[in-house]
Every structure is written in structure tokens, then in C-alpha cells.
């Protein structure tokens, strides 16, 4: 696919998100002009951009939305809940159209088109009928005022006619007024601008020559031919351009190029051509003062305009303001664009790889410098190292994005789903600013979606049930994110009925997931919901409960080297806890060694370090100031060859709310580094979160302490449990 299309689709999606956000805000009662304008602007931008890239079906459809939004904006209609639903459907349809663009098709998918037609019809129903009468009324009411002068009407569903009469028209006995008036037989002249730019200074003006040109907006069902015929008599004596309704922006731009008024500032011409008037004009009016100032400022440095000086004053102040607003907007947009640069993700990856190598090379230079014992060299390399570290931090930061954007999408999901289910549910988001790697963000959407829908469908009870239980009628769904022990934790919390262990157990037996008579702890039973083919709802709804639920969620999260847990309490609610590694993130590690091998423990999971005292241990537990601390001896666990040193050390870690000890040979200290993924070959490997390259060039492994403690727990369980328990433990671990 050509890059322009993917850029278009991406930008259009951003606008779409803005629209959706705005619509949802509006629905919640935030109906100020600013919100409405933001929605309108987004729709307008999509329409314009789709016109430029010539994806006309997107343009056409967006136009329908825009029309309705325009009516709302002009106060001609009141917003209703149904209207917002329809507008949101419209957004969805645009999204579907963009999907196809992303797939590289420039045409419309017939199936999608059919669906879009229904949405379009709904949208049109809101605007329909009333449109022309209201439009006409508006023009009537505003004769001689701003709308008339600036052309503030829904222009794009009208014909646009540009005509420049030839000098000799009048002398030849033709009367422009007559032609133009004749247009009234074809339809309604919504707007007309008279241009006299071609007129020379008074002394040189030939009273019998015609200097006029006109920009006309005509609402008419006439054909192009009919309109052309109006000017048939003077056709050879004038320049005539006719743009049909819904012309693309490109055509308007083309028109501008052909218009003789080259001295006109771009803004004015755009206003005159009727392509993108409304927004500018509106802004112009709103920022009347600011715009007027800028108008002054922008007009002054154009002294070459000569006789157009007069002309400038001739142009209605409204147009100047609109043009100025437009110029200001262009400036604003330029600054915004200057602040944002789109970079391809793989270029970033490449940069980060290189920076990672730089860090490693820097570290080894540092080592050598220290060995050399030359003070100035040590100093120079340490300065260099610090700079390199700063570069690395900034480089890594480039890939980090806030999870807020992902969360915000759920406003819409919760709204739609709660309507569909007939439940009233509030979404509460916290930790939206929590950052994680872009690659993780991209992949977490689907599992989250499933959990959210599941919580709404199965978790939160219907209003009457809630009322009977004495709970607030309105359900509450939370999305939380925070950093913990070198991971990001995302929680989906509902205040619903919770998971009922007995029901789950019965179901699991029925589905043959466990055997009757198997003894399982409550938590183990609850975890059965992550098994393949499990669904507790009797009724299969179209939201969830297709039996491909939680196991897929779990698999997807595990594929990200994450974990998902559930904590639940009957009638209080459930909390799904997703824990994900910050792959590619800056990792502050604690370097340890066992034999010849080096292991990095994520620093934020490290609580403290101490020497292991044999007399304080018992089995795999040690006495930490009176507290029982289970520990993992890496040497044993990883089968490291060789005898342990006389004195071992314990790194006390905390992961997932549990404390544990990791016994290593040596503590080598804090260390900051880049995670190098181990690759597909090790995709099933648990307990190791990745690798990193040390200053010596040696590869060190990064421990995934969370998985490691789980793994150790399971190993112990396998050794200690009766055989039938093994089955259950294996099952809950099976991928």
C-alpha cells in the first residue's frame, strides 16, 4: 500500500477517536460549543483528507455525518441520545471503511457499503426534510449579516460556480445580472460573492468594460449542462468553472489555482471557493478580537498589493476575520505538527538496538579505563558513559506510550455494551498515565476487551438483582494500571456477583475439565475459568460466553510473557489482574552471579540483600527477622555446575505481593541495561524474562521473579502432593 494511504488511515483514525471521545462526552452532558466544534472539526478533517487522497466513499459518508453535526452546531437541532448513537455508528462505519483502506483497497467493500447505507439513512433521517427550508430560512434571516457575507451555509451539497466576465461583455450588450438572475430559475443562490479585483484604478477604469467576477453557491438539482446553458450566450466571453455538489477538496484547490485573483490571500480564496468556509468563519467570529489583530499583522507585510489595498477594505470584515482565523489555524497546526513526528517503529527499534550496543561498548571502555589506572581516562570514559546512559534513557522513552489511550477506547465499549445489556454501568479509569512499551500496548487491547465485556455481561448483575442485594443499582467497572516490581499491572475490576466456586466446579466436572472428587482449593477452582472450553453462563450471549473466553485471554497474556489472576468474592465482585513485563523498557537491574553465570534481578522487585546464614535456614525457608521466607537456590534450580562458595547471599524479592529469597553466590550491585529478548526458541521458557549484554560482552539472563517463584512453588507442590493433585496443577498450567 502506498504510504499516503496508510498515513491517511492512521490520521483519520486519530480524528475518529477524537470524534468518539467528544460524542461520549456530549452524551454525558458536556454539550458546550467547544466539544461540538471539536467533533465537527474531526469529521471535517476526515472528509477533507479523504477527498485529498481521493477515497470518495469515505468522503461521501463523512459528509453525511458532518451535515448533521453542522446542524447541531448551528443550533438548528438539539442533540438526542438516539442521535449520538447514530453518530457513533457512523464513526464505526468510517472505522470499517478505514480498515479496508488499511488492507490496501481503495474501493468500497460491498458488504460494508450495505451496512453503511443503513447508518447513512438513519443519519439523514435526522437532517432530512427540514434541511432546505431551514437553510433558506437562515439565509433569509441573515440578509446583510455575517452568514450572508461569509457564506456560512452548508455549501458542499451545492454547486459552486466561478465566473469571470470578459471585458467586452457589457459592450456587446450582454448583462451579467440577467444571466445570474436566471440561475434563480434553476435553484436557490445560497451565496454570491462579487469580485472586482480585476478593476484598475479609477483613472484607468473603462466605464464600458466589465471587470467583475462572481463566486456563486447554488443549491439546485440541475445538471451541469443546464447550468452551463445559462451562460451559453456569453460562454466565449467569460471564464466559467462549475463544481458539482460534494466535490473533492482537490477540485476546489484546483479551482483556486485557476482563479485570476492571484493576489488574494489563500485564506480568502478558500473562503470564497466555499470549500472549507464554515469552520474558519466560525472560529473567526469566536476569536473576533484575536483574529482582527492577526489580520492587521498579516496584512501589513504585503505592500506590493497596490490597488488591492482598496480591495482589501472592500472585502467584508467577516471574510478577513475568517481568513485570519484560517491563517492562525494553519500556524497552530504547523506548530502542532512540528511537535509531533511520525517515525516508523522499526526505525526506533534499530536505534534502540544501536544505543544498547553503545551502552555495552561504553561499559567495556569503562572497564578498560579502570584497569589502566589512568585517572583522566577514567574520568573521560565515565563522562561518556553518563551521556550514553542519558541517550539510552531518551531512546527507550521514545517507545513508551501511556496506556490511557487504550483505556479510553473502553468508554465507548462500556457505553455500547451496557446499553445492549440494559445495564447501567460506570467506567472508572485510573493510572491512565502509566507508561508501557508500544508493542505491549498494541497487543493488550484484545484481552482487555474480553475481560471488560465479560465483567459487564457475566460479572455485573442486572439492576433488579443488584437492588435486591442492596447494592447500588448502577454497576461500576474499573480499569486500573500501575507499575509494580518491574512489571505493569492492569486490573479489570467489577462490583458484580463474583465468581461462584461451586458453580465453576460443577461446570468443570460437566465439561470434563476436572474429575469429580478432586480436591481443589477455592483459588484453584476459580482459576479453572481460564481453561479451554469453559463458560459459566447458561445463556450464550453474543458478547461473551462463546466458550472461547478466558483461555484465549490467558494465552494472549502469556504470549506477552504476562500472567493473569483473578481475585473474587461472591456478591462483592471480581478483580482480574494482568501483570505484564515492560519489554524493551529501561531495566534497573541488580546483578548477581552463580558460578560463572550472571543473573539480573529487576531492581524494583528487590527488597533487600543479606548473607545467607546456614543456621537460619530449614529446607527452603529461612528465618528473616522472625518471618518465614521461602527461598530459591538458583544453583540448584538452574542446575549450575560446581560447588557453592563458602558464603552465599540472599536477595529478598517481592513479587505479586509475596516475598521470597533468591540465593546466589555473589552480589555484584545495581546495573542498568537494555533487555534483549531471547527469541522464539525460548518462548515457552518461564522464569527468565530476557537477557542483557554485560560490559564484558557476556550475556546475562534477567530473572522473571514472579514466574520463578510460581515455578518453584509448583515444583514443590509436585513433589509434595498426592498424585491426583498433580493433574489439577498441571491443568491449570497447561497452555
Amino acid at each position: 500500500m502506498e504510504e499516503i494511504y496508510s498515513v491517511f488511515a492512521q490520521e483519520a483514525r486519530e480524528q475518529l477517536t477524537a470524534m468518539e471521545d467528544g460524542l461520549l462526552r456530549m452524551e454525558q452532558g458536556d454539550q458546550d460549543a467547544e466539544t461540538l466544534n471539536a467533533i465537527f472539526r474531526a469529521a471535517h478533517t476526515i472528509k477533507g483528507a479523504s477527498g485529498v487522497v481521493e477515497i470518495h466513499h469515505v468522503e461521501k459518508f463523512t459528509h453525511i455525518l458532518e451535515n448533521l453535526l453542522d446542524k447541531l452546531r448551528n443550533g438548528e437541532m438539539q442533540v438526542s441520545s438516539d442521535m449520538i448513537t447514530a453518530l457513533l455508528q457512523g464513526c464505526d462505519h468510517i472505522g470499517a471503511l478505514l480498515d479496508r483502506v488499511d488492507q490496501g483497497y481503495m474501493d468500497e467493500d460491498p458488504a460494508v457499503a450495505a451496512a453503511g447505507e443503513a447508518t447513512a439513512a438513519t443519519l439523514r433521517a435526522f437532517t432530512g426534510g427540514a434541511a432546505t427550508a431551514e437553510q433558506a430560512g437562515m439565509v433569509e434571516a441573515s440578509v446583510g449579516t455575517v452568514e450572508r457575507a461569509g457564506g456560512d451555509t452548508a455549501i458542499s451539497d451545492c454547486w459552486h460556480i466561478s465566473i469571470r466576465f470578459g471585458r467586452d461583455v457589457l459592450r456587446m450588450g450582454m448583462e451579467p445580472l440577467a444571466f445570474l438572475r436566471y440561475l434563480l430559475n434553476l435553484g436557490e443562490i445560497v451565496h454570491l460573492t462579487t469580485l472586482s479585483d480585476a478593476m484598475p484604478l479609477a483613472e484607468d477604469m473603462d466605464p464600458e468594460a466589465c471587470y467583475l467576477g462572481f463566486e456563486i453557491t447554488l443549491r439546485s438539482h440541475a445538471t451541469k449542462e443546464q447550468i452551463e446553458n445559462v451562460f451559453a450566450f456569453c460562454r466565449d466571453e467569460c471564464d466559467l468553472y462549475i463544481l458539482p455538489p460534494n466535490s473533492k477538496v482537490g477540485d476546489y484547490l484546483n479551482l483556486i489555482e485557476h482563479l485570476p485573483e492571484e493576489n488574494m490571500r489563500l485564506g480568502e480564496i478558500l473562503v470564497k471557493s466555499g470549500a472549507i468556509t464554515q469552520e474558519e468563519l466560525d472560529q473567526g467570529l469566536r476569536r473576533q478580537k484575536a483574529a482582527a489583530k492577526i489580520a492587521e499583522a498579516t496584512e501589513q507585510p504585503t505592500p506590493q498589493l497596490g490597488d488591492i489595498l482598496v480591495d482589501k477594505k472592500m472585502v467584508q470584515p467577516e471574510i478577513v476575520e475568517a481568513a485570519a482565523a484560517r491563517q492562525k489555524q494553519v500556524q497552530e497546526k504547523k506548530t502542532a505538527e512540528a511537535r509531533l513526528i511520525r517515525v516508523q517503529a522499526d526505525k526506533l527499534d534499530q536505534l534502540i538496538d544501536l544505543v544498547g550496543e553503545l551502552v555495552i561498548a561504553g561499559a567495556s571502555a569503562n572497564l578498560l579505563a579502570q584497569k589502566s589506572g589512568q585517572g583522566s581516562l577514567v574520568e573521560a570514559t565515565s563522562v561518556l558513559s553518563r551521556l550514553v546512559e542519558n541517550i539510552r534513557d531518551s531512546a527507550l522513552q521514545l517507545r513508551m506510550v501511556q496506556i490511557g489511550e487504550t483505556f479510553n477506547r473502553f468508554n465507548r465499549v462500556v457505553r455500547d455494551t451496557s446499553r445492549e445489556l440494559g445495564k447501567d454501568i460506570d467506567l472508572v479509569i485510573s493510572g491512565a498515565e502509566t507508561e508501557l512499551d508500544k508493542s505491549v500496548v498494541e497487543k493488550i487491547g484484545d484481552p482487555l476487551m474480553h475481560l471488560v465485556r465479560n465483567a459487564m455481561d457475566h460479572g455485573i448483575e442486572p439492576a433488579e438483582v443488584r437492588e435486591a442485594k442492596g447494592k447500588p443499582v448502577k454497576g461500576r467497572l474499573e480499569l486500573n494500571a500501575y507499575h509494580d516490581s518491574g512489571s505493569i499491572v492492569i486490573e479489570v475490576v467489577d462490583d458484580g456477583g463474583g465468581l461462584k466456586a461451586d458453580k465453576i466446579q460443577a461446570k468443570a466436572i460437566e465439561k470434563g475439565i476436572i474429575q469429580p472428587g478432586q480436591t481443589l482449593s477455592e483459588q484453584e477452582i476459580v482459576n479453572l475459568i481460564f481453561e479451554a472450553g469453559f463458560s459459566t453462563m447458561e445463556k450464550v450471549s453474543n458478547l461473551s460466553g462463546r466458550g472461547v473466553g478466558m483461555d484465549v485471554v490467558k494465552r494472549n497474556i502469556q504470549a506477552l510473557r504476562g500472567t493473569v489472576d483473578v481475585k473474587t468474592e461472591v456478591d462483592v465482585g471480581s478483580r482480574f489482574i494482568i501483570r505484564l513485563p515492560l519489554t524493551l523498557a529501561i531495566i534497573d537491574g541488580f546483578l548477581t552471579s552463580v558460578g560463572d553465570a550472571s543473573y539480573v534481578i529487576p531492581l524494583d522487585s528487590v527488597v533487600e540483600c543479606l548473607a545467607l546464614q546456614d543456621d537460619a535456614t530449614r529446607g527452603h525457608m529461612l528465618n528473616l527477622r522472625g518471618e518465614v521466607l521461602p527461598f530459591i537456590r538458583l544453583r540448584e534450580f538452574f542446575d549450575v555446575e560446581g560447588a557453592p562458595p563458602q558464603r552465599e547471599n540472599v536477595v529478598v524479592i517481592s513479587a505479586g505481593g509475596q516475598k521470597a529469597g533468591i540465593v546466589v553466590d555473589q552480589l555484584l550491585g545495581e546495573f542498568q541495561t537494555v533487555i534483549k529478548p531471547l527469541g522464539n526458541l525460548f518462548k515457552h521458557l518461564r522464569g527468565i524474562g530476557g537477557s542483557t549484554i554485560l560490559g564484558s560482552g557476556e550475556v546475562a539472563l534477567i530473572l522473571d521473579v514472579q514466574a520463578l517463584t510460581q515455578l518453584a512453588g509448583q515444583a514443590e507442590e509436585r513433589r509434595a502432593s498426592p498424585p491426583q493433585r498433580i493433574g489439577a496443577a498441571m491443568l491449570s498450567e497447561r497452555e
Partner: protein
Amino acid sequence: MSNLVKAQNGAVTAAKSTGGGDTHQYLTFTLGGEMFAVGILNVKEIIEYGNLTEIPMMPAFIRGVINLRGAVVPVVDLAARFGGKISAVQRRTCIVIVEVTQEDARHDIGIMVDAVSEVLEIPARDIEPPPAFGAKIRADFIAGMGKVDGKFVIILEIQRVLSVDEMALLANVNQASPSDPEAIAA
């Protein structure tokens, strides 16, 4: 990097430039006293054995990972992969970096061999189909039997030998505790 690498790389380039037609070039190496070959196009470079980091909880044939100019590359013990014993590190042991393609993704994998011999041109007519048995290694690992100076060289089907999916699966089984028969079944 060692001199060995440079010498070998030189040989590779030299051999490449004289190739053509139905004759393909192969890098030959020895493993447990036997001669094997891989298509030269798969070979990226040859490095001295060393600086290997072992990965715990992995099957024996995955020797560990090395740092290849900033990339972490796994190293497979080819003899162990063929079901034999783990190779002992010898004076001429080296790692041949091979590129394999799987599901459109390219992976660099190092294979540990006892010694690299030379780059040979083997004409297609001198390559026999793999025997059904008798080669001591899985038949699907063999692309063909090349005749060189009256002796057979096993030309490896390196994409199969180094199938990342298969190896990852084996690794997974390994991690799920080899002492537990149920785990292996799962």
C-alpha cells in the same frame, strides 16, 4: 574475532565466486567423526567457540546463547540435536551462524560443530536422495547424500534441523519437568 573466522570467511567468498549452474556450494564440517554439509547460502559466519551463556531449564541440545555483535543468538549442539551425546568442547570447536527462515521471520542460530573443514562444490548429479535409514540421524534432517572423493557427506536439511517451533516445543516439554510423565504427554 579470531583468525579462524577471517580465514574461513575468505574461503567462503573465494568459493562463491567460482560457482554456477547446477553446482552448489556447501560448507562441510565434522561432528563426532562424521562429515556433514550445509548449503553455503544459509551460512552467515563462523566464529570461535566461547563466551557462551547457558540457559537453565532448557534441553541439552540448546547449549546457550552468545552475544553476536549485540544480538543474542542461541547455540544448538548439533550432535545432541541428532540424539547423540553432548559435544565436548575441543580445540577446533566452533560455532557456525546459520540463518533459518520460519513463518517469514528470519532467525540466526549458531550450530556447534567439532571442526569446520572446507567449502565444497558438489554437482547435483553427485547428490543421492537420503536413505530411509542407516544414517543414524532422522531422515527428514537429511537433504541428500553428497559424494565427495568416493565418500558420502550428509547434506543437512538445515531448516528442519533448526526448526524453531519444534525446538521450542521440545524446550517447553523439558521445562515442564522431565521427571513427570504426565507433563510430557501434555
